[in-house]
Each structure stands twice: as C-alpha cells, then as structure tokens.
C-alpha cells in the first residue's frame, strides 16, 4: 500500500474551518491524510501542540487562520505568525525539517485555497518521507 501520511491541520473556527466546510459543499477532493482540529483562532494554537503532534508521529502540522487583518479576534493570526519563528527554531533543534510545519491564511470563502494547501502539503510530506524511507526512518 502506498504511504499515507498523517497531517494535522489546526483550523480556526471562523475562516479556515469554514473554508474546509465549503470545500465539502463544493465536493472538491483532496487527500484523506489530513485530520482537522478545530480551534477558535489560529492564535489559540500553542507551539507545544505543534511539537507534540510531530513527536506523536504526525508527518506534518499546519496552522490555518483567517487572512491577515481579518482575524475574528482582531489580530490572533498575527500572534500566531509571530510565534511561528519560534516554532521553526524549536523544530530545527529537535531535528524536524522545516517543511513539516506551515502556516496558511485564507478567507471563509476560499475553499480552493484550503484544498490546494492540503494537496501541496500531502505532496511535500510524501517527498520528505520518501527521502527518509531507505534508512527506515519513517514508514
């Protein structure tokens, strides 16, 4: 069976989760590997959650929020953005590739942005994992 990565997507309730809903309404198709975790705001996602998800075996972690400037709680996504540098450093220290973590901003009316983010991430992770497979790193 082909490798099916597991991707954790933290979606804010107001835009990205809604866009994912709309992708469904429009019957757009994307890889099954993503598991969405609903948060109220992208700013709610603690950096520790990203690390823990990877530690537990997630192949990638995404944080998806409203477009910058359009956060339902004024500037939660800016806070998330500000924290992301720290997350990347943390991942570096722990030996995770940068590509395993990404941030995305989209409006509730942009299911296509959601879908392409999912598709691209799944692709990227597949490539990353293929690199590691020979030495048995990941399966």
């Amino acid at each position, binding site marked *: 069976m082909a490798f099916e990565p597991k991707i954790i997507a933290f979606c804010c309730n107001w835009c990205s989760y*809604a866009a994912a809903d709309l992708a469904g309404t429009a*019957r757009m198709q994307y890889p099954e590997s993503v598991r969405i975790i609903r948060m109220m705001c992208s700013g*709610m996602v603690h950096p520790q959650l990203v690390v823990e998800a990877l530690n537990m075996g997630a192949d990638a972690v995404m944080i998806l929020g409203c477009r910058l400037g359009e956060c339902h709680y004024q500037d939660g996504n800016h*806070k998330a953005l500000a924290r992301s540098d720290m997350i990347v450093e943390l991942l570096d220290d722990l030996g995770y590739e940068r590509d395993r973590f990404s941030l995305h901003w989209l409006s509730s009316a942009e299911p296509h942005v959601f879908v392409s983010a999912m598709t691209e991430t799944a692709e990227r992770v597949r490539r990353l994992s293929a690199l590691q497979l020979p030495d048995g790193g990941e399966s």
Partner: protein
Amino acid sequence: MTEGKKIGSVMIVGGGVAGIQAALDLADSGFYVYLIEKTGAIGGTMVQLDKTFPTNDCSMCIIAPKLVECGRHLNIHLLTLCEVTEITGVAGDFAVTLRQSPRYVDMNKCIACGICTDVCPKKIDNDHDSGIGKRRAIYLRYPQAVPLKYQIDPAACIGLQRPGTCGFCEKVCDAGAINFADVEKIHRINVGAVILAPGFEVFDPKPSGMWGYGTNANIITSLQLERYLSTSGPTEGHLKRPLDGKPVRKMAFLQCVGSRDENLCGNGYCSSVCCMSAIKEAVLAKDHVPGLQTSIFYMDMRTHGKGFDQYLEQARSEAGVRFVRCRMGGVETDGESGDLRLRYVNENGRQIEEFFDLVVLAVGLQTPKHVLGLAHVADIKLTADNFAATSDFAPVKTSREGIFTCGAIAGPKDIPQSVVEGSAAAAAVAELLAPARNELTVLPKFPEERDISGEEVRIGIFICHCGTNIAGVVDVKVLAEYVMTLPDVVHVDRKLFSCSQDSQESIIQLIHEHRLNRIVIAACTPRTHEPLFRETLKVAGLNECLLEMANIRNHNAWVHGNNPTGATNKAKDLVRMAVAKVTFGQSSQAIAVPVFQKGLVIGGGVAGMTAALNLAQQGFEVHLVERTDTLGGNALNIKYTWGGEHVRTQVAKLIDKVIWNDRIVIHKESIVTGVAGFIGNFHSTITSKNGETKVIEHGAGIVAIGGEAAVPSEYSYGSITGVVTSVQFDKLHELKEKHVKLAKRFVFIQCVGSREEGHMYCSKVCCTHSVQSAITLKKENPDRNVYILYRDMRTYGQRESLYKEARKLGIIFINYELHGKPRVTGRGAEIEVEVWDHVLHQPLLIAAYMVILAVAIRPRQDAEKIGTLYKVPVDGHGFFHEAHGKLRPVDFSTEGMFVAGLAHYPKPVEESVAQALAASARAATILAQPEVKLDTIKAIVDDEFCDGCALCIDVCPYHAITLFEQAAVDGEAPKKLVRVNVAQCKGCGICQGTCPKRGIYVVGFTMKQVVAQLQAALAG
C-alpha cells in the same frame, strides 16, 4: 402617539440585509417577527455580490451568520414565497393578508442533499447569476440559502407543466419531500406594525438597448460582472469574454446607466452606490486577470461614504485604475472582432475613440414594479422618483402611521446605510409597540441540569447517514461497530437524518435511558449544527458543553467521495478524536450578568437627542450628557434639510420632547471623566463645570459627540472680508446683511479642507448645501451670477434633483482639480477668483462680491479621550471606528457601546437621525433583557500552574485579563495570579496559545482535550 391596542408582533416585508437587521433587532428586544420573503430564500442582493466595498470583504461570508441567526431565531417566523395582498387596520393593530406560492417541496422533509437537482433534466437561465449561468427547475436560490430547502420553479418544471411526465426528482428523493400537489396558501396575520424592506432591482438596459446592451455579449452589467468575479459564480471567478471566451485585456466601465438621466432611462436621481461598486469591481477584476487595464468613464465620482475617497485614491494610485471624466457618445461593435469602440468627449472637449474587450454598464438602482404594487397595497406615499416618501427627521416613517421602511425602498443606498435603517426601523417600531414588549415572544425553557461530576464517563455516539450523503460513501455499519469498541462508549446509534425533529426526540430519550453524559454526533459541521444539538442536550438535562461533533460529511464523505475505503477509515479517526476530546469535556455555565436597564447618551445634538428620546419612549431611563449649556448641537447652524424641512423648527420640537420626557435626565455642561465596567454593567463618572461628579450606572452607551467645522487656512479667508464659510454666509443671508443683499456675483468653492492630503475624506453635505444656497440666491434675484467651483458634484441619491434645478436656473458649475485649485485675491471691494477653464484652455477670471467656502467637517478634539475611556477606537481622521463597516455600522467592537451622528463620519441630518435610531435599537437589544447571557467558551485560569508572568495580559485583544496578588496562605508567600473577566472574554484562546505554564485554558479547547485529540488522530 396612538392610543389603543398594541400587538407585540411585527411584519417585515423583504428578507434582504435591511429586513434581516430589523428582524434580528426586534426579535432580540422582545417583539415577535414575521419575516416575509418573496423568493424561496432570504438574503436579498447581498448574496449575489462577490465582494463588498470598501473593505473587499466577501459578501456571502459576512451576511451568512445573520442569515443563520434569522433562520433559527425562536422569535422570527420566516415565510418565503410570500406576497402581501392587503393591509387593514391601524398602527398597533394591523391585519395583513399574504399570498404564499407553492414550493412543491415539503420544507419539513427536505434535507437539501441536492440529489433532485442532479437528476432534473430542465435547465434554465439562473436569475441568481443575473442570467449568465444556468440552474435546474428544482433548485436552491444559492448554495448557503436560508432556509436551506429546495424549491421547484413551476414555470420551468416539466412535471408541473405536463402532469404525469418527468417526476425524476420525486423518484430519487429519499426523504419524500417532493409534493407536486402543493397549492397556494392565504395567510392572515395580526401584527402591531409593518416594516417595508423590499429592496430594489437594477436597471435593465435591455429594452432601450442602452450603450449597445443586448447587441454584443461583451457588453455586460455590473451585477453580471459580480457573478463572473465570484468564485461561487458560474465561471468560478474566471473572467473571459462572454462572446468568444477570449481573454479580457482592456475593460471599460460606463457609469450612470439608468441613473441621472431622465431622457434615456427615466431615472433622474443618482443611484449613489454605482461609483464605489465600479471602482471595487475594477480593482478586483485586476486580481483575476493579471495585466488587465480598467478604465472608468464617469461624470462625477461620487465616493462620499466613510473610507470611500481613500479607496478611490488607492484604486487610482496603487491598483492603476484609470478614471476618465467625459460625456459618453456611443458604444459600437467593431466589425467581426467583437471588440467595442467607445466614442466620448473628454474633459478638454475633445472627441475620442477607444477600443475595449469588455464593457461593463454600471447599472443603477430602481424601485421594481412589484414594490410599487406593495406601496399601493400598503397605501403609502411615494416621491417623484418612486421611492417611499419620508421626513428627514423621521427617515424610516412612511406616510401611513405604523408602517415603516428601511433599505432601498426609501431611496438608493449602500449596505451600511441599509443596515442602519434596518435597525432604525426596529427602533421606531419598538417605540410604537413598547407597551406590548415581551407579550408574544417566547423564551426557551430547559429542565434542570444533571450534575455529572460524580459520574463515570458514559459516551453516546450518534452517526448520521445524512440520507446518502454520508452513508453513500462511508460504510456506516462498519463505523458503528468500530466506535462501539472505543473506551467509555456505552451506546451507538445510527440516524438517517440526525438533525430531524424525530431524531432529536430519540436522542433525548436515549440520553435518559442509558444515562449518557458525553455525546458525540458524527455528522456535518458544528458551524451550522452545533447550536441545534447543544439545544437538544439542554432539553435532555445535560450541560451543552458535553457535546462534540465529528465532521464526517463536509470534511470526509464529501471530499473523499471517490475513495470510500479511505473515507471510512478517516471517519473512524474523526470519531475517535471526538470521543477522546469529549471524554475530558466539562460542564460550563453560560454566565449571565444582570443589566442596568438604563442608557447613557453622550452628546445633546440631533443624533444624541434622537437616540435618547427613542430609548425613553421605548420605556428606558436615559442619561443625556451635554458638554455645553444648550441642546441642539451643529443642527442649530443649518436652515433647511435637503428636502426643504426647516431645521430649527424641528430641532426646537425635539428639544421640547427631550426636556419634558420624565425618563430623560439631562446633564448639561458636563463631560464623562471616568468609566468602569462592561456590557450591561457600565459605571460612568460625569463631571460638571463646577467640578461636581456623579456616577451613572447604565447597561449600554451611545457616543454622539458630533463634529465641528474646519477653519479654512486658504483662499484668503480671514484677510478678505468677503470670503466667508458657508455657515457664516447662511447667517449673513438670513440677517439680510446688505452686502449679501446687494451682491451680484457669488462664487462657491467646494472641498475646502476635504479630499486632500491628511483629510482624504468627503464631508458629504457640502455639495448639496452649496447647491441649495445657490438656488436660493438665484431665485431671489435671477440677475445674480452664481458660480460653483467643484471637484465632483456629489448630490447623491434623490438630491440630484437639486443639481438639475440649479443648472436649469443658470447657475454655472466649473470643475477644478486638486492640482489646480482656484486662486482668490482681493481687488478693492471686489474679489478676484481665478480658475482654469478646461474647454477654453485658459484661466477664467471671475470678479466676485462674495466667496463662500464649503468647509470640511472635522471630528471633535475630545473624541480620542472618550475613545480611551470606553476602549472604543477612532480612525486615522479622528472619527469613531465602528465594529464592522458593513454589517455593524453603529456598534463598537466593545460590546454595549454604540455610535451615531457626525462623531462617526460627516453626514446629513436624516442620516444622523437614522443612525441615532439604529444605535438606540441596538442598545435596546441589551437594555430589554434583565440579564445578558455570555458565551460558554471562556478562558479559565488554573491557579496551580499560573505563576503570574502576565504574558497573557499583553496578548488579550479584549483587555479581559488582569493581574492580582493572592494573599499569603499558611505561611506561603503571597502569589501573583491572573484573573479573567468572563464578561469581557470572547474565548479566542490567544492567552492559552501564549501561556508558557499551561496556566490558562479555554473551555472546550483545553490543552488536555487537544492533546487527547492529537493522540487519537495519530493512533490509527
């Protein structure tokens, strides 16, 4: 005021954004609402728009929450496909007759799965897509329609046209919702008041073939362009030439199609919104087509609303939209190519020809025929332009008592103004029906909640088939068997439609039967359905927070339709995650804060007084704080409204009513100096001139501190006595001052202090005011020469009639540009005004006796201070900044605070009055409740882990967290901790995302829950 019977219900005719706003405000303040919609779904024109100006917000996204709220409000009864046929009775006690067309789909059965549409063989033009796309005979007006129920178009349906044929939809409908035998129904409903909000239609250029419309498919209307640009439109946002599918490289917008032109279209008025919507479309189209050139051909750029001039400037300088002031001559197709040749006369009087790929006609707004019929049925008076006639001091009252209006029926207007009027109409109704408040509304009643703290976890899972939507992809049987094996799961059930009424009853029963204390619903999205299931839990005596939804439809079955095995596996994961999360769920009570049922209004001008008076007449005590020793504000400087009403007479009446109202306490020569508290619970300190202070308790506050006239620093103002401001001129004219009386030549200069660097906004009232003054001067003595030097003549809406009259009277209008401002110099008793003449290409010299400067309106200096006190923001210009420019135009993002009048932005009297009423209606939604219920999703501090580092305090967007010191206990040192003010907390969890110690968490999203979810997600 009318005596006699008052019925506590209202009928609102029209489910567009104005009607929806009125419905929500009334239903939230104790009145039962019948919301009548002519089509199959509410939403009006907004649901057709792609984006909205000036924020470029997605139109659908911002109206959707209001639609859903309307759809499920206990005190709003939606009636679709209805028309009013009769209104009898008097204010307070009307009987309205409705004719409801058959839907042919049983609303109680339809689950909107859409299978019927898939099999329907009949395709016709889609009016939702303005005719450019197709829809079937059985259809939803738009994908997110409220109510989300299909309908059959009887004119198109094959089965209805020829009974016994077709019927495919009936065969595939599992729910059995299709009913070909459906018939027309007549309803007779008693209500206390009626609000007419039927909206507008766009001008149809087809019959007259205006600018070649109908002869070449590459000529489209602005509404059609909206649909082309919309990602949910027929082309999914791809813009190509309709005629041949070729790319669009050069696009032209032609303004004022169906507006400002009695000869060509019969509409003399200005439609007021088309300039902005064209600019928006020109900017957005460039995003869709890289390298696209857009040109807007116009007479006057009317961007008079808040933020509009800035938008215009950005469109010009950043987006590169080209603006051409011209007189359009004609649009012709260029041979075979399908290209379009525009002929026009430019500003310099030159005849020009230019080619375009696509021409967009910025079509105006007009009153549709059926609305004229409605006006007739309602027996209300109309203006010459076919809009509802209203007074400037009562802009939502029609000529018939008890019947009100809002939105475009009373004149063309944009979304914010329509929303304002929706709320204003609600305020006017609430005033009329105040004695009947809460008489017909219902409050949801729930049994006492079970205390589950001592119980072991008992999870019940309900898997929804959603017809075949889920079950058609996911193997629900396998799923059910699997989830039964998960820890603490004691009951699993499958439901064909878990959201149906009978499923709710069964869930309640099973909760009792199995003593379930955590519930997982594996179905669709919590965004639409969580409130419903939360309600069900409450009825079953469970806390609403003990629910978790697994979205196995939108996030699974629908997006992995071509991989059933994968979808089934993913469904297992999703339910497992929900189970893991709900296991750690905890009860939480929506906290209720008692409300001081009193209002505070700051500012005793027309806006402040109107708001105070309305609140008082709705039955609330009001404190009115005025800085000076007189009520009346800026209105005391104005003589007539644009409609010709004498302002001072009306203001005197208003002052009288305010003074004699027992419920209004007036605090003159006082200002607010301190504020504490939050929604429902404000304590404002006011200080009088002699230093006395008082603390006023109030549940809501309205800021209406007004604005002030700018002092000109140009045009020799102050050095030449004949150069005066418009306010000064009005005084001189009124006093029949001899210079004014004898003067033969007057020059008005517009935009003094407006629309330029540092003040890039339009003061909105000055064009109309100058035109009015000029007309008076000319009428007094036709021999006078009157000039108006302007940049864009902004006599928007029905004010256009004044502009027309002025030109007819021979008033001379000369256009100038910002870089070529007029020059004013003194020459003895005369004043010389020099302005560039575009046609003659030389300076024109006018020897004037008097120069009148139309000066800008500025915010008040103390605005910022009040902003800081109430934590409400001011914008870059110093005007107060509302919560949302489109949909919450009088609310502040700080709950319980509202804004009205010039403090918000320059505006004429009738708009100030409407806004004041709107603010009052919004405030009443709080004051009418004995307590406010706050959301359950709140941050909670874990004292054990919190070490008082205070990082969360800085990031909280609502200033809801404070630091405090816990007194020493049992010999331990005192400890620093944070506290959350639950009333201010909105549950965003930014604190949780920031806390390094796991010392603060949000109910329903605790770190424990999310980690459990992660574990479950990655366990499979």
